[in-house]
């Protein structure tokens, strides 16, 4: 593999990443699309096939957990501080978890990756070129599987009696983290519903753009769990077979 293919941008000059034996497979998709359930299923499937697998999520490594939580509790973040906290968090996870696992020959299943950060940052007003350059130290994945869904199909999945109650009581107790994840900081609508819909609509627009520009494998996530699952597995098998 050529060096400029290995990293998304400028890379990590002080790290020799030419001996990565494993595969980095990314599952992207917006909140509530069912990524995490699919990843759990795919992990055990791969392990049955005899592959070593680790999964990694977006946010909250040991290093950054406290800084992010404290900042969120205070709601005093400006756009760049918010974005950069996540960049630091990812850099930590990349160098301390993802790269070591790939060097040991593991398949790394990433539940979200830099593309989530791109979408969230652009929606918050960051320059596209800036955020992409800042994440330039990231490894290019072997495949990005994008679980695509329309806003009309997404709403009933995320907003139902169970999640509404959960959200209400979480906010009451001050533990509600989705203030940020539903884009409430952007004040896009009068209430949580309007804000969520507008935020997700903008995120999906960004994902749509990236899916075309960055050659994602697009999987229709409005289908049943089994259908999506079969499609994801077929793509992953293809990626593994191609060395």
């Amino acid at each position, binding site marked *: 593999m050529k060096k400029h293919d290995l990293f998304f*941008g400028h890379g990590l000059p002080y790290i020799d990443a030419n001996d990565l034996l494993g595969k980095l497979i990314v599952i992207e998709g917006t909140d509530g699309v069912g990524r995490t359930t699919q990843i759990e299923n795919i992990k055990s499937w791969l392990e049955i096939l005899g592959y070593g697998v680790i999964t990694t999520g977006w946010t909250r490594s040991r290093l950054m957990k406290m800084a992010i939580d404290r900042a969120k509790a205070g709601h005093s973040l400006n756009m760049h501080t918010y974005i950069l906290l996540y960049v630091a968090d990812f*850099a930590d996870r990349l160098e301390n978890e993802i790269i070591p696992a790939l060097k040991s020959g593991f398949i790394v299943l990433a539940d979200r990756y830099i593309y989530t950060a791109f979408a969230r940052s652009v929606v918050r007003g960051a320059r596209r070129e800036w955020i992409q350059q800042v994440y330039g130290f990231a490894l290019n994945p072997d495949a990005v599987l994008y679980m695509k869904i329309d806003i009309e199909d997404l709403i009933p999945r995320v907003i139902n009696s169970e999640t509404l109650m959960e959200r209400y009581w979480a906010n009451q107790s001050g533990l509600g983290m989705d203030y940020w994840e539903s884009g409430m900081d952007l004040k896009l609508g009068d209430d949580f519903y309007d804000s969520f819909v507008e935020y997700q609509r903008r995120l999906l627009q960004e994902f749509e753009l990236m899916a075309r520009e960055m050659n994602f494998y697009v999987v229709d996530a409005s289908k049943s769990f089994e259908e999506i699952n079969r499609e994801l597995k077929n793509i992953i098998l293809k990626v593994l077979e191609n060395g």
Partner: protein
Amino acid sequence: MPNHLRQRHPYPGLLIIVEGIDGSGKSTQLQLVQRWLMNLNYKVFFTEWNSSALVNDTIRRGKKKNLLTPTTFSILHATDFADRLMHLIIPPLKAGMIVLADRYVYTAFSRDVVRGVNADWVRELYSFAVRPDIAFYFKVPIDVSLKRILTGRAKLKFHEAGMDLGLHTDPVESFKLFQGKILLEYDKIASEFGMNVIDAIQPIHDQQRIVREVVTNKLSDYVPLPYIANPSEVHHEKA
């Protein structure tokens, strides 16, 4: 949103920054500028590199546990700076004040590149920063800076000597190697960003005369009027 670091900011205030290796005398020079400007009745605000609370704890914890890689170290400082920029630098600039900054983003450009990150990457990382109206670089040979530091105190600090980079087991030798690399980066940065290079071997008073000349030139077209975001609304409220 353009690269702010490469064009004039829109605020009425003035941003004056000083850069240089430890022991270059930049802080002394900036203090003298502050005294002088305050004596002329200008509203002055002083700020230092790396002094906000948001990520200081994380940086300290990371340093202790050795979790910080060159990239996380660099991003954490940028995060810290973004916080300070919003709370401590832009508001006084909008209010038309003169902001004096002891070290600025160029400190990160030199130090982080020496630690191993890509030079273009770190410049892009900080491209949200406000471009200074005046940037001074106090250029001094390593031996002079070392002598100045060691007259003030007995020992070199761990990070100031770059001991974590493992360049040399002896702090003094490590300092020379580390700060030598920083100096090379500063030279590139000074010409890239058109900084005013001051020969920091000269007597303090001579350096300050040159510094004040440069600042005086800038003051001629400086009008300390606060910036009001939406004049029509303010007017409406009055009526």
